[in-house]
């Protein structure tokens, strides 16, 4: 069993989600613009949501709402978790944006390096 399960079509979804996650992560840590960082954070967390939802999917199943014609449903638990996580994500974004707006008022810029210069010059 230790041979790598090279089932590319089986893991393709996860890997794309990971690629998206890492793109978001990269934007967060490499960009100095505060709003860009927040966009990156959004990207990062949305891609994690894609990973979670991928875990809950079953081939040939349908949305987890009881009906008479279907009997195989995808796993509803990841959906619930991600519903909560989406709310948490937007809450964080909102607070971050409010901070950004205040920072712009106080510093006149939202670039990290310019803020640092202004702090040091004091």
């Amino acid at each position, binding site marked *: 069993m230790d041979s790598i*399960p090279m089932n590319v079509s089986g*893991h393709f*979804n*996860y*890997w794309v989600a*990971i*690629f*998206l*996650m*890492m*793109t*978001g*992560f*990269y*934007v967060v*840590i*490499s*960009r100095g*613009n505060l*709003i*860009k960082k927040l*966009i990156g954070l*959004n*990207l990062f967390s*949305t891609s994690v*949501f894609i990973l979670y*939802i991928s*875990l*809950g*999917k*079953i081939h040939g199943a349908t*949305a*987890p*709402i*009881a009906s008479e014609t279907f009997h*195989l449903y*995808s*796993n*509803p*638990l*990841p*959906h*619930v978790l991600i*519903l*909560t996580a*989406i*709310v948490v994500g*937007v*809450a*964080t*974004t*909102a*607070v971050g*944006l*409010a*901070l*950004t*707006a205040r920072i*712009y008022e106080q510093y006149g810029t*939202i670039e990290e390096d310019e803020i640092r210069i202004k702090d040091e010059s004091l």
Partner: protein
Amino acid sequence: MELFIDITLLTFLCITALAITVIRKLFCAVMLAGIFSLLSACLFVSMDAVDVAFTEAAVGTGIATVLMLAALNLSHSREKCPPYQPLLALLVVCTTGAVLVYGTMDLPAFGDATAPIHHHVAPRYIEQSQQEIGPPNFVTSILASYRGYDTLAETVVIFTAGLSVVALLGIRDRRGGQSITTDRSAMKGYLVLRVVTKLLLPFIFLFALYVQFHGDYGPGGGFQAGVIFASGVIIHSLTLGRDRTLKAFPQRFLTILATAGVLLYGGTGLAAMVRGGNFLDYSVLGATALAGQHLGIFLVELGVGVTVFASMTLMYYAFSYRKEA
């Protein structure tokens, strides 16, 4: 066919994500982020997560984009070139990604029905939730009852975000002495827009109510309804002027609503304790367990909807009033 849709959407997602990293205009980046979340909402639909897709479309594409644009309005809209080569960042990201890929090697294949995730806890939700709780939408049952406590915390999270944004930006009620007709934020020159908005608003609010009360049977629920209701108010404020909106939904009223929503949720839990159950055990609320669950879910969904609506609207107020204050 499903695979084809999946691959197309994933490709689009990758292109959008890469575009976001490259583009310097923040306005474009925000719009692309909106597109990204709309695409991921489509992907969620194709992976059967209709409730999640609904929320993502309403929140990620709607509210988050609106808030970002509002914040852009308060600051710069162009990003500076980074002064250094972010090689270290690239290294960190590649390592993290590699570790994650290594971790997914052992995961069951995508869509595999024999994965452990589908066989331990989830079957009870699917097989018994209709007898134990009632709603045909399993997601609603889990969200409001089995894991209702998470949802209480989630409601408090959005309430906290509302509080935080208001604490940081403050909302100044400028109506004193100023008449509504002189409000410059109203889109005076856009007659068509104003007429269409007035025409549509009742339907938007009606749709929000439908989503709120139909969540048991289809995708939807308090959270999505609250967001839709809030977006109705945002459109109202954009086209008809902030002052008019502030008159219809004053800040104090919204604060009380947000609080009331949280307290309604918590109060439902406390009521269950008073009647001898555990916290949030709705079964004891009604004559039968099912009736109790029904009542409990109705109340907590209402609490969620009210809090989400009020908090989102407060946040929007805070951003949109900042500029002139």
